[in-house]
């Protein structure tokens, strides 16, 4: 079969210790043989996979670089094809020169995600595993990385497969009752459906909860700090940034003018949105207009409402709080070192919100804020240290769709709809679950997954 040889630089742009040039497809070894001069001669015919060879890339007497060359055999590589990796000196130049040489000798430049696509097409990984690869690359948090790696392994806790199998068995039993009306098959089938569907809904709910919790780790919590001027919003901001020395990055956010800072608090990534705006509030002239707040609040998943007020909130604070209706809010009673809060009373005042007492300036009790966030966002459905299969957003959508179909089945039963109508939604649910592992074919899903890949993976 025709396997075009592909190559790409697999390490990121920039200066680093080493850079890796990757080659995959039939003829990889033959091409490597043309350009690689080993320090210790070896027989290519008897060479083993997963072995490193030290030497130089040399072509027509020109030395390209000093490299370590890794050989991987067909069926025992990332793509399931014959592969070679050259580890050359860092920086772009050496790697580029080697890649250009390989291209000149007939290899083709790999498209984004092409290596993984081949792994998928060659049957090494399924769709949910292919996605896990992207997510491993983009992981921003330790727990997030664990999820991706567990899914990549692809052997454990894949409940969606089991639920789908159950569903298909149930469909088959129901169809038998319909197609063999004269065989006197059990007419209690409606009860059976009800019982089993309820159980499946429960299982799917758990998967959805896991995916939601996974999302917290994967994407962080979009957070806005609000409050009146001089209550200590920027101190809180600075305290959080100080708490997490390793500021992950400054990622341009969804809109052009918003800058996000991500901090990890108690292991949970928190995305502080619109912090630039908040920083400016140090300027005593500028107050946060309620309108402006409202806009930020719309996008936030968590609102940190800072106050230094002992006693009733004033009108402005009440305005801000009323704009937070339907959001998860933590009221931060700042400056606990200066103000004596009458704890019990205040706690009641702020229901349904949570309250935390801390001093941003002194950095005391920041961990309480972490615990409050954890309580608000994590139901504990994902156990610590347990390598569970946790779905991503796409999986969650499929689970939700499947669940809706199953609820339709129950509704149809209540409405006294005949058996056949229940089967329609049972099938719909099975189809939705099939989207997770790729049993159900959809061009849109394929496109979505592979468009996220970077070159060289």
């Amino acid at each position, binding site marked *: *079969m*025709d*396997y*075009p040889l592909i190559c790409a630089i697999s390490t990121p742009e920039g200066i680093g210790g080493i850079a890796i040039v990757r080659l995959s497809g039939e003829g990889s070894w033959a091409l490597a043989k043309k350009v690689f001069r080993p320090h210790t001669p070896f027989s290519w015919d008897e060479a083993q996979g997963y072995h490193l060879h030290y030497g130089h890339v040399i072509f027509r007497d020109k030395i390209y670089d000093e490299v370590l060359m890794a050989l991987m055999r067909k069926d025992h590589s990332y793509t399931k094809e014959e592969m070679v990796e050259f580890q050359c000196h860092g920086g772009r130049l050496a790697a580029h020169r080697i890649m250009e040489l390989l291209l000149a000798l007939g290899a083709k430049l790999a498209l984004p995600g092409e290596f993984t*696509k*081949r792994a*998928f*097409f*060659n*049957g090494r990984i*399924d769709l949910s595993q292919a996605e896990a690869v992207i997510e491993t690359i983009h992981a921003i948090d330790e727990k997030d990385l664990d999820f991706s790696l567990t899914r990549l392994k692809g052997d454990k806790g894949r409940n969606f497969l089991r639920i789908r199998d159950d569903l298909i068995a149930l469909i088959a039993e129901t*169809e038998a*009752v*319909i*197609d*063999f*009306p*004269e*065989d*006197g098959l059990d007419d209690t089938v409606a009860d059976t459906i009800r019982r089993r569907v309820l159980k499946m809904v429960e299982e799917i709910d758990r998967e959805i909860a896991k995916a939601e919790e996974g999302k917290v780790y994967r994407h962080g919590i979009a957070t806005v700090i609000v409050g009146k001027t001089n209550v200590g919003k920027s101190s809180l901001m600075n305290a959080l940034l100080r708490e997490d020395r390793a500021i992950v990055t400054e990622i341009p956010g969804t809109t052009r003018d918003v800058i996000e800072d991500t901090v990890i608090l108690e292991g949970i990534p928190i995305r502080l949105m619109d912090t630039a705006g908040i920083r400016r509030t140090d300027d005593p002239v500028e107050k946060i207009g309620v309108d402006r707040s409202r806009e930020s609040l719309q996008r936030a998943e968590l609102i940190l409402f800072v106050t230094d007020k002992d006693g009733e909130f004033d009108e402005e604070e009440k305005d801000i709080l009323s704009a937070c209706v339907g959001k998860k809010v933590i009221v931060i009673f700042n400056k606990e070192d200066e103000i004596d809060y009458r704890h019990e009373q205040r706690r009641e005042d702020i229901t349904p919100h949570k309250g935390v007492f801390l001093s941003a300036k002194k950095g005391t009790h920041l961990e309480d804020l972490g615990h409050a966030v954890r309580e608000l966002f994590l139901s504990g459905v994902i156990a610590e240290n347990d390598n569970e299969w946790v779905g991503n957003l796409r999986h969650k959508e499929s689970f939700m769709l499947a669940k809706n179909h199953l609820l339709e089945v129950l509704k149809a039963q209540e*409405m*006294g*709809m*005949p*058996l*056949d*109508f229940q089967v*329609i939604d049972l*099938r*719909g649910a099975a189809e939705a679950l099939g989207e997770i592992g*790729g*049993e*159900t*074919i*959809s*061009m849109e899903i*394929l496109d979505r997954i*592979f468009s996220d890949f970077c070159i060289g993976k």
Partner: protein
Amino acid sequence: MNPYLGGKYDIIVVGGGHAGVEASLASARLGMKTLLLTLSLDHIALMPCNPSVGGPAKGHVVREIDALGGQMALNADATQIQMRLLNSSKGPAVQALRAQSDKHEYRMRMAWTVQNQENLDVKQAAAERIIVEGDHVAGVLCDHDLKFLSRAVILTTGTYLKSRIIIGKELTPAGPNNQPMAGKLSAALKDLGLELFRFKTGTPARVDRRSIDFSKTKEQPGSEKPLAFSYMTKEFNRPNISCYSTYTNPRTHDVIRENLHLAPKYSGIIEGVGARYCPSIEDKVVRFADRDAHLLFLEPEGLFTNEIYVQGMSTGLPYEIQEKFMRTIAGLEHVEIMRPAYAIEYDGVIPTQLTPTLEYKKIKGLYGAGQINGTSGYEEAACQGLMAGINASLKLKGEEPFILKRSDAYIGVLIDDLVNKGTNEPYRLFTSRAEYRLLLRNDNADLRLTELGRRIGLVNEERWRVFNERVEEIKAVKTWLVESKFKGSEEKVAAYLDDKGSAPLRGGISGAALLKRPNIDIRELAALDDRAGQWHDDALNEAEIEVKYEGYLQKQRDQVRRFEKTEGRRIPDDINYRDVSGLRLEAAEKMDEIRPYTIGQASRISGVSPADISVLLVYLTSKKNKEQKKIEEKGKNHDCL
């Protein structure tokens, strides 16, 4: 010696069973000069197995055949001795008509229709070879040193190809009912390069009505309401004869177990593959060892015979054992066998060698329809015969082929399955084989297909008129439903709702809205409203389904649209599957063999996985993108000039 030229035809149909009669009638009615060859003029449209037509999915097909201008429904209506509506509580899509037939009347009436059809000759002769010139069919060579020439040939050989009958250890080279079989044709087909399979099927014993004690069995009467497959059937004066049911018991199973070594399947005599869904009684006893009773039906075979068909008791056990185990069954203690049960093995041609018009890819003008394609059942055979007859005629006329989609008809599902997946056991239609069965109902077969039949030319004036009347009537009922007002203040309305356990009405709502409530029946609504017309039950029923289940119907239509978006995507005819990088070799070979027209068709080929389809989709998309780019670049260059 030169064979005698018996005649020249447009189309020759080889075999006069259920597929053969539909094929030859369709072809003759479409103006083709047609010859029907049969091994025996006495056995045209024979029912060698169950004396019945219809059932889930099968009954749907009968109505589809009718809508397209076929004969089966009319013949079944005219010769039925009992009619029932099955699955009436399980939903409109899975309801199906089933007729008990007078098997002799069925056969004679169909033979009479065929013999009197204009453009159609019927002759008794055994086809032995197919004449092929180049890669095109040219006629048929028969026994008696007889030759017929034609532009197309349709093979509808049923279970007669090199068949043999097995009863215990006794093997007889014969067709059903010990008739002569076609001994030479299958070898000749092999010589043409076609690949054959060998299947097995069976039929239970026929017993003497007078030897049964019906008081120990349960009566299963036919419907009191007049029912018919065809909307053209206007006379309902047929007798209504009951069937009866009874059960096997542990003693029956003991007799069977003790003699299992005598059954051909267990003694190793049978080579052919049987159907899982139609197991012999010995299979049932072995496979469901924990069940101590199996249901069986006693079905009359006709008005002028005492033969009773023992449904559910097909077996390959010897005569003696058959009678012995049947006599353990309640009501059958003194039963007398009139004809023993037997198993039958036969050759067929692997159907993946066909295009969706049922023409063989290798030999132009040669078609296959019915059991030769690996199906089982009269209805499955008949619809293929009809489609082959239509397509052979259309091709000779130089017109577009007639292919039904899976979302059009059960016939479409059946043929799509056969030519793409093939089958490794006798293929029977089930409603569960249809993805969109809510749209493929028994009640709307005519609404789905009559217009198509009209376009082809098989729907005559009378049928067209009846159809249009029905369409208008349904429209009238639906208009009434939408425009009517039922008021809670009206006493009879309030009483009706109370009676149904339905919530009382505050103001007034339309009949359509009311009908969507559980337990509300359109006939009862019509009785409550003076403005309701005197409509036929069929029209009321149709409108009720369309209104009551509107949400579900829409859901299914959406599914079809989604399906057609991805799966309806065309695969270029000139695709080279070896060029598709990443496609597994096995999948590439399968697709190359079938040459699917669409992604959907490709996905249903057995041995092709969803991952293979993903690979193909990505290939087609990237190819399209590249071509698009080329065009754009060309455009750019042009601008430069």
